[in-house]
């Protein structure tokens, strides 16, 4: 399962980052790493991007980017 497929309100744990290069680095630098509890807060009015909460702060991320974060229930 990947992060982009989650509906607002659902929670999950990050498992793996599968991106490369710049996106990989950016995802990590913004605080995404395996074993983190993530909550999907909402989608934007036009559905994309989505807003997620992790450990006390919120990120906005496009679905095409969230696709590179594997998660599990």
């Amino acid at each position, binding site marked *: 399962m990947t992060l982009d497929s989650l509906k607002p309100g659902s929670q999950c744990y990050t498992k793996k980052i599968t*991106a*490369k290069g*710049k996106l*990989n*680095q950016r995802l*990590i630098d*913004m*605080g995404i790493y395996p074993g983190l509890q993530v909550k999907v807060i909402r989608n934007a009015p036009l559905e994309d991007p989505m807003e997620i909460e992790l450990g006390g702060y919120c990120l906005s991320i496009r679905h095409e980017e969230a696709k590179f974060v594997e998660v599990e229930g």
Partner: protein
Amino acid sequence: MNKVLMALAGQPNCGKSTVFNTLTGANQHVANYPGVTVDKMYGSYRKNGVKVEVVDLPGTYSLTSYSLEERVSRNFILHDKPDVVVNVMDASNLKRNLYLTFQLLEMEIPVVVNLNMMDVAHRRGVEIDFDCLERLLGAPVVPTTIKKGKGKKNLINTINKVGLSKKKEHGIKIDYGSMEPFLDEIEKMLAGVCETDYPARWLAVKLMEADDEVEKIIRRHSAAGFDAIKARVKQIRRAFEAESDELPERHIAYARYKEADRIAGESVSVKRKEASLLSDKIDRIVCHKIFGPLILVGVVYALYHLSIVEGYKLTNYTWPLLAKIKSLTAAIMPPPGFMTEPMVRSLALWFVDSVNALLNYVPIFFILFALIAILEDTGYMPRMAFLLDRLFKRFGLHGQSTLPMVLGGIYVGGCAVPAIMATKGIPDERARFATTLIIPMLNCLAKIPLYILMINIYFAQHKGLAMMFMATVTIFMALPVAKILSLTILKDKETAPFIMEMPPYHLPTIRGVLGRAVERIWLFLKKIVTIVAAVAIVIFVLMQFPGLTEDRNAHYADETKIAKESFYKKIAGNPYAEYVQGDSIMALILYNERYKKARMGIKNKEKARTVDARFISENENFFKIVKPKKDKQAKKLNRALKKLISARKRILRQIKAEMIDNSFLGKIGRSLEPVTKYAGFNWRVNVALLSSFAAKESSVATLGALYQSDEEGETLEKRMEKTEKDFTPLHALSLLLVMALFPPCIAAVLTIKIQTGSVKWMLFSMFYQMFLGIVVASFVFTVGNLLGLTGLQAMGIFFCMALTFTIIMGLINPRHEYQ
């Protein structure tokens, strides 16, 4: 005196700029880092006999080589070697902030850890054991709530202490676990073959991360053996990957987070969980599916209304000041003659007019800049980007293009200068360039006078409709152009992932907001106005030279003579005639002008009497002629004088028109006719468009000079209609479209130069717009003519075409680079 060079580093939203402002006060400057367009904020302060130079590094989450800001920060630390780096942190988000701290410590520089925003941490029930944290990090820790001045003294003392000790520090050493043997191997390999003064372990970690910039450093310091080193590093990376089944850069980052987790676990305790409840509640409305867009429209409207409408009212108070500058200049310069104006006088007045046209925007800009600072400080900007990213992304733009487009005049009345300045916030280089390049196509305030002029003459029956067309069609031209640019010429520009923080909402401080507004106004004055003034002079020369031929001069001298003769004939025998002989006549004309100006707008009788008294004491006889009251002879002379004045005005106007006609600019305008005829423009329109290069307002003023009338007080609308008999609404539409697309004003073009840091892009932005403008206008005019369309029909059809084209361009979805 002791000197300390200090750098401020920290992640975004940690209150770093508040720390910078509190420490340096008003003593701040902006410059660019060498070769790049990232702002370098620096300042200084003195405390306890120590002068501290402060450089505020850009806020970054990390210190890799992937983004310009991160590269700039890192290079500053590496090459300028600050005596101390203050790492400002959001105390309530310690764990994530430590990620950057580790990277600073790894560079083996003296670091002071500043836990800022302690009040927020307290509110959220976050308790931090400072001694424990200090011990674990191996660097001094100073808690502050700088916004309220708490902890400032302690911070300053610690900076002095660490900064003056001038020794290399070794803070915490991160345990990279299974990677350690690989790092050792790289370190050993570098020792001997590559001598640098950078920390060896840091180099090794960076090489494992495959950092390009560090590879370049190694290349510089290892003349011959570089290829061998590079190959060996590649081998070691591969070996690690094979052993651990993970990319080295990921392993490194995860190790840092693990360490941050451990340190936070030992030194931080969270009493109750209440993570920014208020921000969450606000976001439920601000990012709501229906209310979100409504609030966005409201914010945009308020931004327009307060700056453009209310700010424009403010110019009613500031304009008299600028007018005063002009009248003072006029008073110092040599007075005009009967049919000639001394060159130095016309130049000075033109110069003041051009600069005033820009300075008049200062109140509007000030309000605009202050409002933007408020939007930035509250945290609404990321929400704006969140709401609109999907829409803009379709056209190669970015969520954060919203603000620049709003400022540029997405509807009616913006200004390209602050808009292009605001593109700085867009992290994606390709989207930033695309936004910058389309902003001049939006409806800036200065295009409006020409719109109104043309619509009043040629679309008088459908004013509202035509204005609506202009207000909306520009965005349907700008969006597809943005998409085309990003698919073609901008294809190779760097892009950046969108992922961004949605920080909690903050109350902005008055100081922060006003400070930023003043700083941006200053930048505008310093960089833009000076060069606009220079260009104004160039255009002046192009409009004045080579001037009239001797023949024509003689012709006007004759006309002058005739006018004067007729005047003297009329007043022959008049008792006042003796006062207006010879040079006195010119003195009287100027006296009359000055008196009229002085009395203008004065309704108060008392004041009027004082003005009169002043003019009577200056020249009693002139006053009797200018204001004859019941004196019959004086009245007669007054009538003759009025005739003479209007004759003089007519001659002056004709000279001016002929001068422009004959000038270099006029010649350029004529030589362009073969091209512009397809758009329906004759040389007069060409000259108006060329002159608008200094400032777009000039276009109407130039048309005013070109369309002359013998009847006093006839409006420009009437005069233009009379002179251009075969001008149709289709011509007007073509001109409107060109005005919307083509004339880039020099101020906007210069801002593009400043923001992109490149003359090449500046020139490109100018020429592609000229090209686009002339092509679109020619298309509309030529095709419209062939099909025999009326202006209104052509307008409607063009609108539908632009809209359809926009939709088609929006549907083109290039394969994304992540796939």
